[in-house]
């Protein structure tokens, strides 16, 4: 948006502009000092966040509902992808959280499908990456944290606190370990959400920085090669971060179901 106003010849870097939340169907009136598209957005307004979240929902729908509409015993290609995703998460939940964890499989599948789709949609040039926002990942991370903590107390009662009391350690060390365990427990949702948002934000910002260097003719080939290389890395990161988020959720779920070491 500010590129038009730049002096020609000077480099203009706006790696963070891609993360700005702005209204849909809106044009900024250049006469006023206030940007009408980003100023004072109410909670219910349609924004680029809304658009890309909706596209993620549609992508999940297309992959898991439209792809499997034939219900073929011998699957088509699209159905295989849906079954692959199902089997992947189903096996992960079963392996990490045990058979009792399978009850929560739909929730974990929801998290995984949302994150993976939002990550990959974010890789489309000029798109908006919803999972690069702390607001989004914090809701996911704290949602998991609160759900798992409540579940732990509901399932185990006060004995859930045994999670913090390492009975296999020497008695003298136990209070210190308990303190460390409590701190690490409460840090979980923070690291859980910042890991995801941070990875995506950093990657996308680096992409934009490389793209900015492409404005200089002399280093443009290197910059473009850099963009391609970082893009490849980001494809990997998109999947791995979704995987990491999901498997950590399964680990936390396992702690809630079986709090004793």
């Amino acid at each position, binding site marked *: *948006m*500010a590129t*038009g*106003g730049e002096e020609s010849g000077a480099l203009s870097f*706006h790696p*963070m*502009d891609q*993360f*700005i*939340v702005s209204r849909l169907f809106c044009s*900024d009136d*250049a*006469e*006023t*000092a*206030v*940007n009408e598209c*980003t100023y*004072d*957005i*109410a*909670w*219910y307004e349609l*924004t680029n*966040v*809304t658009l890309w*979240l*909706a596209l*993620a*929902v549609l992508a*999940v*729908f297309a992959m*898991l*509902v439209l792809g*499997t509409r034939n*219900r*073929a*015993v011998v*699957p088509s290609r699209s*159905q295989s992808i849906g*079954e692959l995703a*199902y*089997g992947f998460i189903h096996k992960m939940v079963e392996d990490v959280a045990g058979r009792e964890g399978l009850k929560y*499989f*739909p*929730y974990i*599948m*929801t998290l995984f*499908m*949302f994150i993976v789709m939002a990550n990959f949609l974010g890789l489309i040039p000029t798109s908006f990456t*919803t999972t*690069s*926002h*702390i*607001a*989004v990942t914090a*809701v*996911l991370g704290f949602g998991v944290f609160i759900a798992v903590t409540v579940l732990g107390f509901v399932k185990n009662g006060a004995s859930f606190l045994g999670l913090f009391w390492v009975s296999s350690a020497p008695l003298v060390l136990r209070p210190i370990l308990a303190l460390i365990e409590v701190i690490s427990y409460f840090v979980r949702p923070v690291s859980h959400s910042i890991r995801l*948002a941070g990875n995506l*934000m950093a990657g996308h910002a680096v992409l934009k920085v490389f793209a900015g260097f492409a404005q200089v003719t002399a280093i443009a080939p290197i910059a473009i090669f850099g963009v391609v290389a970082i893009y490849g890395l980001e494809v990997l990161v998109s999947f791995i971060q979704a995987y990491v988020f999901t498997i950590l959720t399964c680990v936390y779920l396992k702690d809630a179901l079986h709090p004793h070491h």
Partner: protein
Amino acid sequence: MATETAGAAEDSVGLPQLDFSTFDNQIFWLVVALLAIYFILSRIALPRIGSVLAERQGTITNDIAAAEELKHKATAAEAAYDKALADARAEADRIVGETKAEIQSELDAELAKADAEIAARTSESEAAIAEIRDGAKDSVREVAKDTAMAIVAALGRDADQSAVDKAVEKEMTS
């Protein structure tokens, strides 16, 4: 120029991620999106995929069971075939043996009959021959007596019939 100041104002806020004024909007739409995905998955997608996978597993299990059953049937059929073959062979052997024995007994009977007939005929013939021989002996004796008589008469001596007969009889029985 105005846009630049707006941009500058944006920059002063810092990271768009830390612009808390947009948090309520993001969180609201995120919750809507998550609920939508959750309902799509739990109502449609997961039961469908789960049933397809279960059905496939069932089909595979059934097919394997059917194949096993067919294999058993084939083995049973082979055993039945082998048994039928063995039975047929035994039956054939039995029939051959029976027939052989029958033929043998028939043959024996025929042979015995033929032997008896031959023996009867032989004895009959022997009787006839003996009769003929006796007849011939008598004739020879008669002829010998007559011949001796004639020879004696030819020698010009008076022949005594009884003496000649005696002499001939004596010569012939010796």
